[in-house]
């Protein structure tokens, strides 16, 4: 596929290594970058460099952070005893948008993938276990994705944490608000029925 020469091909190759970007998109973006103002392109390059230099992992929760601890770990007003376990930093953003959660977070930086053979030792599980006595955590909310990987991760963690006498909960799977019942698949609807609650 090496149609272009030198730096242009290098740029296309590098862009093509980004997640979700195929060879065609890489080519399109490369040509776009050639056409934009030199300052705009430099700003992008600079932003990438800065982020790589300054952003690291929070040493407590493994969220992205510009310091030793991330903003959520530093926030004094949050509840220390409840921790919400997510797969990736971007999931924190999704939970925060609900405005329903005021506890701490723990980012696993991935999920157990039975299909890819990715086991718990490749995730930040040990670090989660270490936090529980250290921070006197009493409730763990498992907010991994409702797919095979996320479910496998939640099942594994529940088996590990429950014997320690913690309250372990899993976010409910249910019907999307605004959707029609008749379009719901059986797995989702079955879980929604299990997780039903009394109407006040």
């Amino acid at each position, binding site marked *: 596929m090496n149609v272009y020469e030198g730096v242009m091909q290098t740029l296309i190759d590098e862009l093509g290594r980004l997640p979700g970007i195929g060879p065609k998109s890489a080519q399109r973006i490369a040509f776009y970058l050639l056409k934009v103002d030199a300052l705009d392109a430099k700003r992008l390059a600079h932003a990438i460099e800065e982020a790589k230099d300054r952003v690291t992992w929070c040493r407590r929760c493994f969220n992205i952070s510009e310091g030793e601890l991330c903003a959520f770990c530093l926030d004094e007003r949050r509840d220390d005893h409840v921790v919400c376990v997510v797969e990736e930093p971007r999931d924190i953003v999704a939970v925060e948008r609900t405005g329903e959660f005021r506890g701490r977070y723990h980012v696993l930086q991935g999920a157990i993938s039975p299909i890819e*053979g990715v086991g718990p030792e490749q995730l930040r599980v040990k670090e989660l276990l270490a936090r529980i006595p250290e921070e006197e955590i009493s409730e763990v909310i498992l907010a991994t994705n409702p797919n095979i990987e996320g479910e496998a991760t939640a*099942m594994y963690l529940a088996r590990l944490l429950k014997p320690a006498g913690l309250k372990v909960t899993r976010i409910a799977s249910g019907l999307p608000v605004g959707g029609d019942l008749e*379009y719901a698949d*059986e*797995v989702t609807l079955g879980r929604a029925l299990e997780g039903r609650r009394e109407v006040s």
Partner: protein
Amino acid sequence: MPGLYRDEGVVLRTIKLGEADRIVTVLTQGHGKVRAVAKGVRKTSSRFGGRLEPMSRIALQCYRGRELDIVTQAETLEANRVLREEYGLLTHAIPMLEAVDQVAQEHEPNPALYRMLTGALRALGELRNPVVTSAFFWKLLSLEGIHPMLDGCARCGHEEGDDDAELIAFDLDEGGTLCRGCARGGGWSLSFPALDLLRRMLGGGLNGVFAQPTGPETHEVEQLGIRAVEHHVERRLRSTALL
């Protein structure tokens, strides 16, 4: 309708595609292995919902594309929920899907393979016995035309009962057991209980095998089954790392 086809199948695996799509690999009853794009399936508003997750047996309708087909409809026939909601069952179900993905050919119907897979998934859910997965590996090899020699030495031909013909190893290249003398040259060690289990598994004694409590020989036969399937497909089965 031109380009459209309907079939039933078991979802073997899914991989993310772009922002919200997935490519689903399905072993169908009548069209062999099929790879199709499920558009928008990762959005919570998707009309496919959880139907296209691995292990689901579904009725599907696809549009034949140039490279990949497109899923246009999917309905659940059997969700196999129990396999998804127990860690030990999930880790034993996925390797069966991976092994099938490796042996099945695209658009080549293999009804026997389909029957075996749906039967094994059902059995694993009902019996909750991990031995189902080992039995599946060995039966899969049989279906592929590989029948291991288990009543003599696959290298020197010594038959059981002969002097010095105690069978103590299994050799993947020879495709069978090895006697004590030949086992010095290699092979995977095989205990007598494991050999006995393997014989009953392949000799039509499956129900007895499933009824019996699991022991160390179960693990031995499982590990050897993994090696044998990997030897046959000439690549690693990644999902067996969690067994």
